[in-house]
């Protein structure tokens, strides 16, 4: 009983020491934790996986450096999957610093998958209009890509005109551009729409999943980790999640220890 009671009043420094140790080990350790893949992430993966090579997908990168830690892993996981499947990917960025984010991701990924050309982008105001206009033809808002290469001279864009020519649109977003994609894009042109969101935003968009406007949602680092799991391609997200999960478990462990101590002490005093 003595031992159990001491659980109740552990010095906080033991908590800290244990937490640091576990985090550092988890940071370096090369073990992989199983992730339970949620239905809403799986549906995105399965959709992409079922596409034949050469099919076009559309990825909207709508986040800023402040959300980078959470959303970059998602973009990487998705892109690597798409490239390995030899899908053709069209990118847009409609947020302030989105192009920078997309550029970085594209460069990093193409380093590992050796894609021949990359294109960069600039921002654009009035996103509802851009989204609506692309429903007519991508060439209306964007006659050329960022480097000024006319879309018509890019082979993969030859017969790609509007949302009818893409298999799915994935919006990876850290802000309210998602609303515009849902109401002006999906709502008007009825294409399959999947979302990649920050952890905090996720809960807010579940109603759209229920109403079938959105076919899948990846939520934060966790969603990215699930995607990495399914594509069997552990990366940034799995690394981050490993530390996160272990840290959470440490905290939970200490909560349990504290309660054991508390009940032991109470029993004794009775």
């Amino acid at each position, binding site marked *: 009983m003595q031992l159990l009671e001491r659980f109740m009043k*552990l010095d906080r420094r033991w908590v800290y020491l244990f937490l640091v140790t576990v985090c550092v080990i988890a940071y370096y350790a090369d073990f992989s934790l199983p*992730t*339970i893949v949620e239905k809403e992430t799986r549906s995105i993966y399965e959709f992409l996986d079922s596409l034949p090579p050469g099919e076009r997908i559309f990825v909207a990168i709508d986040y800023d450096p402040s959300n980078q830690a959470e959303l970059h892993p998602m973009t990487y996981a998705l892109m690597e999957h798409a490239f390995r499947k030899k899908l053709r990917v069209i990118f847009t960025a409609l947020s302030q610093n989105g192009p920078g984010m997309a550029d970085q991701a594209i460069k990093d990924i193409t380093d590992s998958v050796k894609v021949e050309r990359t294109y960069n982008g600039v921002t654009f105001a009035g996103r509802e209009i851009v989204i609506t206009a692309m429903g007519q033809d991508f060439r209306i808002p964007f006659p050329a890509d960022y480097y000024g290469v006319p879309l018509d001279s890019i082979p993969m864009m030859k017969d790609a005109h509007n949302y009818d020519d893409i298999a799915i649109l994935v919006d990876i977003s850290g802000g309210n551009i998602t609303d515009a994609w849902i109401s002006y894009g999906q709502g008007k042109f009825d294409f399959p729409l999947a979302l990649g969101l920050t952890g905090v935003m996720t*809960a807010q968009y579940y109603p759209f999943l229920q109403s079938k406007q959105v076919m899948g949602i990846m939520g934060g680092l966790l969603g990215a980790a699930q995607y990495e799991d399914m594509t069997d391609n552990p990366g940034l997200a799995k690394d981050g999640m490993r530390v996160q*999960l272990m840290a959470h478990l440490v*905290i939970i462990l200490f909560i349990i220890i504290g309660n054991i101590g*508390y009940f032991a002490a109470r029993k004794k005093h009775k």
Partner: protein
Amino acid sequence: MVVQYFVPHEQSEHAKEFLLDWIIVIGIFALALGIWSLISVSMDKINKRRTNWEYSAVTLIGLVTMTFFGFTAHGDGSWWTYFIALIVLLAALWFYVQGLLSSGGKPMTNILIGAGLSAVFALITIFDNSWTFHFYTPEGLSNMMFINFFNYIMVPLQATMFALLAFFIASASYRAFRARNVLASLLLIAALIVMLRFTPGPWGDLLAKTSTWVMNVPNLAAQRAIIIGIGLGIVATALKVILGIERGYMGKG
């Protein structure tokens, strides 16, 4: 200002802008008072050699150094005179403030030494062309030392202080989440469910769903109640101030 809300006319918007501007202008004078407060409290500690007075000196050096960097721009040439000037400035200010604050002793001596050192500082400023003061243009903000201090001292310190929260959140949950009674148990269970939401295992999916529900339903409800309460509390407090019922802020309790 209550009226202002209902009057959309531009004159009313102008009035609002003026009032906000005034508060900013008052803030300028307040900042001077604030900095003076920081200096005098620190100097008091140093003069009376209270415990930890050394650290107050470090604070003051940091304050003067950063301010000096912010108002000067360094061009080409040697950095040595720049730093010597800074040290002389620190010393001069030290003696001045000592002279102004010291209750006993010989204030005049201190002030005279301060004056002598300022003269040296002025000479360096005049004869050294590698750096200059800029009070009318914000060139100091792009001074290399100012930026370095910002990047290598302020930014990492801010991030680290913020990151201490990872530990505090751990020790707080260890200490406080005990199932003492119904309320504490509810707190504990809600926290556990949400924390466990991404653990692997057959229960993971269920917990994820439950935590989403908890965030969207009971959480939303209680937050709404708190928000409405806060709204009324704010209005009542503002009203009391306007009607002059509440004068506590003027010390009339």
